[in-house]
Every structure is written in C-alpha cells, then in structure tokens.
C-alpha cells in the first residue's frame, strides 16, 4: 500500500480517527502486559502500519496473520522496540517503550523480551549452551552462572544432551528449540516469534510451536507470533489479521 500523498491536515485526520479508535488507557488494563495504541509507521511513501491498536495479556499467545507485505513484521518490530512508530504509543508493563532512546530499548529487549526468528539466527561459532547463555553474559552474569542457567533451559526444551553441539550439527527443529531456549532464558515478559516454523516441516513445526507457547505461557510470558501458517495460529489464544497495515480481524482462536 502506498503512503497517501496528503499534507499534514489529512494525516491529522487519520490521527483523529485513531484517537477515536483508541479504546482504553494502558494504565487501566494491568493484565495487559504489552499494548500498542494508534500505531502508524511509514517506510518513505509506503505505509507499514496505518493505525493499529493491540494488547496482549500475560500468559496469552497472540497470532498475527495476514498477506505478505501488509504490516505483520512491522507491527512485531514496533511492539518489540526494534522500530519506533511514526505515531502512536507502545507500552510494556507500564513503561512507554516508543519514547525510550535506542540504548534503553536495547536494554529493555535484552531483559524483558525474547525473540525467535524464522532461521533461528544462532551464532554458528558457539555451541548451543553458549548461544543460550550469551544474552545473560551480555547482561553481566558470570560465565559459570550463565552457562548453568542455559543448560537448565536447554534441558527444559529437551536438549540436555545437545548443549555442546553447534547449530550446524543440529537438525532444524533442534536449532529452533535452542533459539526458544535463548528467548526464554532471561525470563522475558513477552516472547516475539517471527515465522518460527517457516523453515520446518509440518510435524517439527507443530512440536516447536507447542514448545514455544507452552514454555512461555507456563512462565506467565505473553507470546506474539507472526505466521502464515493456520495450524500455528490455531495453537494461539487469539488471532489478529493485518491487511494494508490495519487490523482486519481480531478474534479468539479455537484452541
């Protein structure tokens, strides 16, 4: 979708519409751990998000679906503080994320959020336990403690015997489970997953998404999953469909 070639007045109109759409104050919804309000994001002339409101509760899994290039990943990146919105607000547990500077958002991502990517993006040079321990070490934990926690987390995702193996020596499903362990090891409030099963076969994909949602929500973390896969979405509590940068549908899933 192209960005409308309107002046500031029309943008103001859009914003006015979004203000009307904004249905609640974040402070009034304590159970909502992550929320976005009136999110607008442009890429040059192209509209990434055209006014999105979203909220996720602790222990809830939200699937974000929709056609390619319609704003799913942009929404994930904005909610995760990777991108800042041009308009709108992002709140994480009572803290406004979009107004933080880059360094503060970096710390916030490291301490309070977890990430799982489609192609796992593990460091090929590091064995599984060090891949999982790395965020903890970056945060100042000693190597011994970080590795200990990492191995414990790997055991919880069924990889106790693979801790010393490198990503290149693991199967796709195993590597993705390492990525899940890395995402969860810091005990995040929200785990973001961008097409986490996109590179896996159906059976392995089902196992991985069950593990991700089960392990995260069991700890009280919210999960936001961007996916094209209906079977993945069906495992979430709620499905939000994004079309042309807007929320097209926001319904409870059949799980």
């Amino acid at each position, binding site marked *: 979708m192209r960005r409308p070639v309107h002046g500031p007045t029309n943008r103001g109109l859009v914003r006015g519409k979004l203000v009307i759409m904004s249905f609640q104050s974040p402070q009034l919804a304590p159970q909502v751990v992550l929320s976005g309000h009136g999110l607008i994001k442009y890429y040059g002339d192209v509209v990434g998000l055209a006014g999105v409101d979203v909220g996720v509760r602790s222990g809830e899994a939200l699937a974000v679906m929709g056609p390619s290039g319609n704003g799913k990943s942009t929404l994930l990146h904005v909610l*995760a503080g990777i991108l800042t919105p041009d308009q709108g607000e992002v709140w994480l547990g009572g803290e406004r994320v979009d107004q933080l500077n880059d*360094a503060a958002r970096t710390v916030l991502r490291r301490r309070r959020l977890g990430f799982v990517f489609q192609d796992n993006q593990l460091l090929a040079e*590091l064995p599984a336990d060090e891949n999982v321990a790395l965020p903890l070490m970056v945060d100042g934990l000693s190597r011994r403690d970080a590795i200990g926690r990492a191995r414990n987390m790997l055991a919880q995702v069924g990889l106790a015997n693979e801790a010393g193996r490198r990503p*290149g020596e693991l199967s796709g499903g195993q590597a993705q489970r390492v990525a899940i362990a890395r995402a969860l090891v810091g005990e995040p409030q929200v785990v973001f997953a961008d097409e986490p099963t996109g590179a896996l076969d159906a059976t392995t994909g089902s196992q991985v998404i069950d593990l991700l949602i089960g392990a995260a929500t069991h700890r009280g973390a919210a999960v936001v999953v961007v996916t094209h896969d209906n079977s993945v979405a069906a495992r979430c509590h709620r499905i939000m469909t994004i079309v042309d940068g807007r929320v097209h549908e926001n319904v409870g899933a059949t799980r």
Partner: protein
Amino acid sequence: MNPMTDLGLRFVRRPGPGGRAANLAALGATAIVALLVTFLIAGSLGISHRSDRIGWRGADSADAATAIGALHTVDGKKVDGKPLLQVDLAILKPTNQPPPPGLDHLPKPGEVFVSPEVAKHWASLKGEFGLDKPTGVITDKGLSSPEELVLIHGVDKIDSKYPDYVASWQTTAMDGRLGGLLIAVAFGIILVLFPLLSLVGQAAGVAAKRREHRLAALRLAGSTRSQVLWLSAVEQAVLGLAGAVVGLVGYVVLTPLIAQIPLGGGRWFVSDIAPPWWAVLIVLTAVPVLSVLSALIGLGRVSITPLGVVRGQTRKSTTALRLLPLLVGPIALASLGMGAAIVPLLIAIGFAALAVRILGPFAVQIIGKMMANLANGPIALLAGRRLADDPKAAFRPVAALVLSGFVTGFISVFMPGGDDDPIWQDMRIGVALLMGLVFLTAAASTAAGAVGTALDQAGPAKALRRSGVPLSVIERSARLAALVPVVGVGLPVVGFGALCALALSGGQIATEGNSGILLLIGQVVVGLVLVAAAGMAGAPVLRKASAN
C-alpha cells in the same frame, strides 16, 4: 551469451545487499595489488635503465691492449657541499662508435662535460679546469638521476695504476651499486610476495560467506559444479580486471611522486619508472587470473558440498603438522650461510615466510580456543569462538600484517648504522620502502578483511541487536577477533624473522645503533594502528548491514 556468464556479470552490476561494499573492498584490494606489482616491475626496470645509461662509467670490460678508452674515478670532490663524481676519461684508440650516452662527442683532453646540476655551480669549478664554461652539458640519457652531480673530464692519460678499461661506450654492464640494489629488490620481492598473495586472496575472499551461500543455493537449484565455478570466475575476473586498471592508473598518477624516492643514487626520471606496454599487459592479465584462481580455490568447498555450506557445517580443524614447515627455513638458512648464492638464499627465505603463512591459522585456532574457554564475558567469548571456528578466515585478513612482522624481524638484524656510505643509505631507504610496501599491503588486506568479516557476520549480528545485544559488544568482539591474531601470532613471528636472519648470519647481528629496535617498535605501533584503522573500515559496514 552463456547464462552463467550473464548471471556473473549481473552479480557484478547488481551485487545485492552488502554486495556493493564487498565489491568495492575487493576492487580496492586488487587495485593495490596491481599498483604494487606494477611498482615492483617498473622499479626493477628503472634500475636497469639507470644502469644502462651509466654502466660505461664503471665498466672494466677490456684489457689495456684492446680497450678503446680508460677511466678513473676521482674521489673526495665536492660541489655545493655535496659529493661530486668526477670521471677522468682518456681515449686510447679512435672508433666509429657513438660517444658515451648523454655526450655529443668524445671528450678531448681538457674538455669537460658536466651534469645540469654541476653546470649551475660551475663558477666554483672553472678555476680548477681553466674553462669559463663547461664544454658541454650531459643530457638525461647519460645521467643516473636528474640531480646527479657528475663531471666527465677528458685527459691525455689516466693518472692511476689501475684504470678501468672500456671496450664500448654503450656497454650494458650492470653498475656495481645498482647491481646490489637489484639483488636487494629480489630479496624485497620475496619478502613482499606472501603479503601480496595474501592480499590477492583477501580481495577474492571478501564477503566469501555471502558468495558461498549464493553459489551453494545455485548448486541446490541444479547448477553443475563447473557452472558455479564459471560464474564465480566471471564475477571475479571482472572485479580483478577493474582493480588492475584502477591500480595501473593509480601507479601512473603516483609516478611523479615515486620518482622522488632518492634510491640508488638520487631521484628518478619519470620515464625510467614508467611501465612498458608488456608490463601493463602482464598486470592486466596476471592480477585478474590470480584473483580468479584465489576465488575458485576458496570456493572449492562449496562446489563439492553445497549442502554442508548452506547449513553451516563445522569446518575441519587445523593440525599441529603445520608446525613442521617452521623448521625448514631456519635450518636451510643456517646451512647456507651468508656466503651462499642468491637464488638458494631467496628460496630459503621464501620457505620461512611460507611457513608463517601455513602456521598462522593453527596458532589462531589455539589462541581462539584458549580465549573462549577462559572468557568470562561475551566479547572474549564471541571473539575466541570466531577465531577457533574458522581460523583460516580469521587469519586471512591479518596474514599480510603478520608476515610484515616476519619481514621486520628479519631486517632488524641487518640494519646499518648512520654513516654516509651510499650503499648503506640505499639500504636504509630500501628498508623503509620495503616496509612501506608491506604495510600498504597489510593495510589493504586488513581493511578488506574487516569489510568481508562485517558482511559475513551481518545476519547473526542483526539478530543479536534485535535481541538486545548492544552494537558495541558486537563491534568490540570483531575488533578483538582482528587484534588477537596480530598480537598473538604477529609478535612471535617477529622473533621468528629475527631467528631466521640470525641463522643466516651465523648469530652475528649486523645492526648498528638502535635502528633495529626502532624498526621493531615501529612495526608493533604500525600493526596496532592498522588493526584500529581496519576496525574503522569494518565498523560502518557492520553497523549498516546489521541495522534493523
């Protein structure tokens, strides 16, 4: 057009994300290779040209019975406070030969031909020779350098017991000083050869991982091994040729500056060091061919096991067998000794330098493992694992710099003192020039390597940044991974270079004063500065390539 040729050319024109930086780095590195190769060829030829013009002055090429002339060099004269070369020349028999280069006729007794620089100061000499002005001014064709202070004095007979007898005024016999310089150049070429080859490999290998993945994808899509290799060859040949052209143009532009180097008896005529057409042809052919060969050797693994590369298969470890070549150089040099012929000496020194190149990755692997195992923070852990995981790739960018350590260590044993002997002066300038060449090579190689590494690491670095790992941690680990091989391998290699030189000299240190120590300290400082500079070259690329 062959579809793979077309695809290869398209990859050059539209290289994709990060590809432009990779291509620019490869082109820049190749250009420096071309520039240095041109310099070495044209410089060697320049020495020969210079010798051809003045060879007759020092030639003792005949006996008294057959000689057409006799010469004697008068020592100790000065003009304007600088040493003046006065050559007394006696004609022994008439010939049909043209006069010596730069003179319009053979000087008769009492006639004096002088270089332009001497002509400017003739007032201080005219009393001695009884001439208001010199008989003639020697043209460029008879001078070693534009500023040469030389005077050819016609005499009846040579006032010396041991004159030099000349068989021809056009002799091409090598001038003694310039002959020594040519041998020194040969040593220099051997010492700069491996850094230069490392740079060729670096230029071809920049963004190697990116290319590996692309070509492995082509293999998975059904391309044959030969098609994949051909595509890479086309891509690298275009970049290599472009780099060679840029390097040649750069050399031509720099020629007036290069001509200012006062080596082998003064500054140079630009025409002396201009590359002939065949040298241009060699550079335009050899540089792309070497680039292509380097790229193809580097891609051998992709062609054979495309699946392995796509999945990031663990690489084979290097083994301790790499230590063995270390013994060959010193033993060979010790057995040859200083009196040996030049060629075996050159081969032995080449072996020693090659051993450093072979040993480097093994040493990097050991250091990397130790670092990773002892690390208590993410920076050392990342750097150590990166070094241990692919020590060849880690060593490649700094190979030239490490080899410069060998050169420094070797030369530091033979640094002359501060006297006015022109041979020593040549040697000091030659060492400075050699180190300049090696450091330029090392700088280009290190910078190209930093760009390549940054591009290779872009994907994981992007994921780390998204996950909340600060860019500074990623950059510092990259800098550490570049610095450790330089310090951890480079410093011992300086010692190995000195050991080889001592083996050659039989334990004698020819260095006078503290020039050797200064050279070693300079090497360390320059090495560290280069790594820092290389980090600066890689940092913006990493920042951009890993940005969200």
